[in-house]
């Protein structure tokens, strides 16, 4: 017995909001993370494919095409006989619904710092004073992406609810630093005062402790960089800080997904985004005297080459129709 199904007319996607996803750009190699909508476009929104990290819902998503198309004229009087793309440019702006470490860093567009718990008597400093000593990771029991083995003695300095940064000591290296994600660029050891805590001060490899047992810190979610190496250490932090004016440009691979009510999906993929503004917020009144403070972000898209035809492009928009829609 054969069955013939009936296709229906495609309607404009109706969607209530968009979800954003982050993946790192390997800055040293200049290699973004590419998302393949043909292979992975239908992923469940709450569980993006590796290495994409869910940034949560976003609002006021606005794409802007800055590409300039100029006429090519010939003859007298001049007549447009063709066109040429004189500039390729695209920007995207939105507001994060979630105010987390990664969201704040991306919105600030530069090296956001972790406010590491300070050493006793540290002099005051705008992005946090000199940090206290970090706790080394023990080799036994081994740490995982969600458990940090620091021993019972060091664990006394931590409590459930503490935020922690996990990364290696700074030891004079220059260039991009930060586990998993290039969090900053170090020009010289002197520029960062040869501070052993500098990489933990900027790293995006952070978590929150939800339990401590026998010298093992259990985190609420796995660390973004995965299981830590034995060279990494753990620093307690109290919050995050970004600044207007630093020189580093954060760069990331972005994916935005609009889920349509008919089961269709729009995917916007920007392999390389850099912030085009400093830290900003969007204030929305919702019930006096309260106001909602959202992270406002705006980015410029940088180019990649599409391997299918060698074209230089800055973003990809894919549409996955609902089942049984007329093309």
């Amino acid at each position, binding site marked *: 017995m054969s069955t013939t199904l*009936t296709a229906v*007319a495609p309607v404009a996607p109706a969607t209530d909001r968009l979800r954003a996803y982050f993946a790192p750009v390997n800055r040293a190699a200049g290699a973004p993370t590419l998302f393949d909508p043909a292979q992975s476009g239908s992923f469940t929104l709450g569980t993006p494919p590796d290495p994409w990290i869910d940034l949560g819902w976003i609002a006021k998503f606005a794409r802007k095409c800055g590409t300039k198309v100029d006429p090519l004229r010939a003859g007298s009087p001049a007549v447009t006989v063709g066109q040429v793309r004189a500039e390729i440019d695209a920007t995207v702006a939105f507001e994060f619904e979630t105010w987390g470490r990664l969201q704040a860093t991306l919105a600030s567009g530069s090296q956001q710092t972790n406010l590491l718990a300070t050493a006793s008597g540290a002099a005051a400093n705008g992005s946090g004073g000199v940090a206290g000593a970090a706790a080394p990771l023990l080799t036994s029991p081994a740490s995982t992406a969600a458990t940090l083995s620091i021993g019972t003695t060091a664990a006394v300095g931590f409590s459930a609810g503490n935020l922690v940064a996990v990364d290696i000591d700074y030891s004079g290296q220059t260039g991009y630093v930060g586990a998993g994600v290039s969090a900053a660029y170090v020009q010289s050891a002197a520029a960062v005062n040869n501070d052993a805590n500098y990489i933990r001060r900027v790293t995006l490899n952070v978590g929150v402790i939800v339990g401590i047992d026998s010298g093992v810190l259990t985190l609420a979610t796995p660390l973004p960089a995965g299981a830590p190496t034995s060279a990494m250490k753990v620093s307690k932090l109290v919050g995050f800080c970004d600044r207007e004016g630093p020189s580093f440009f954060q760069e990331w691979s972005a994916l935005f997904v609009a889920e349509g*009510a*008919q089961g269709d999906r729009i995917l916007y993929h920007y392999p390389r985004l850099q912030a085009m503004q400093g830290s900003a917020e969007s204030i929305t009144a919702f019930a006096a005297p309260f106001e909602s403070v959202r992270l406002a972000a705006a980015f410029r898209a940088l180019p990649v080459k599409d391997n299918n035809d060698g074209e230089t492009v800055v973003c990809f928009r894919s549409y996955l129709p609902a089942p*049984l829609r007329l093309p």
Partner: protein
Amino acid sequence: MQNAKDTFYTTLQARIAALNPGRTIIVRGTVRPGVLVDENELPALSPPVDCFRLRWTKLEVAEASPLPLAAMTCAITYATDGTSGNAAMDRGRLLSAMDAELAAALIQTPRCAPKLNYSAAGVGVAPAVMGTNIFWADPVFGAVTTSDERLERTATVQVFDYQEAGEL
């Protein structure tokens, strides 16, 4: 549009049953999840309490898209007298529990469901899955009304439904 009304009802009923399996009602001797559609039931002098009663009110139809879009308003009324064991002093808590159940059922993702045609469904015969989804907006909760110890609230939600071939 009847397909959308039926689909919204069965979707809400399933979600409420999953959220609170104890939210049940006896209708004509049968225990069912505590969600019913007034127009599908026998008229009753005293509406049941501690359940969700659906009524379809406004309707708008727009022709702007390739498929006509129906926007229907569903009014969901629920009430409680509290429990006699607590001398009705738990009626506020019981209404709050129903507020939370209804809100959770309506705002959980996805806010859509495949439209089902129940016209040929019956015992052992599943409804036919149609080509489009119904979807709905945020619920709007009205003020609580009080009658003696009874607390009652009506929430409204707009349900959208593309009209497929043969539905209009």
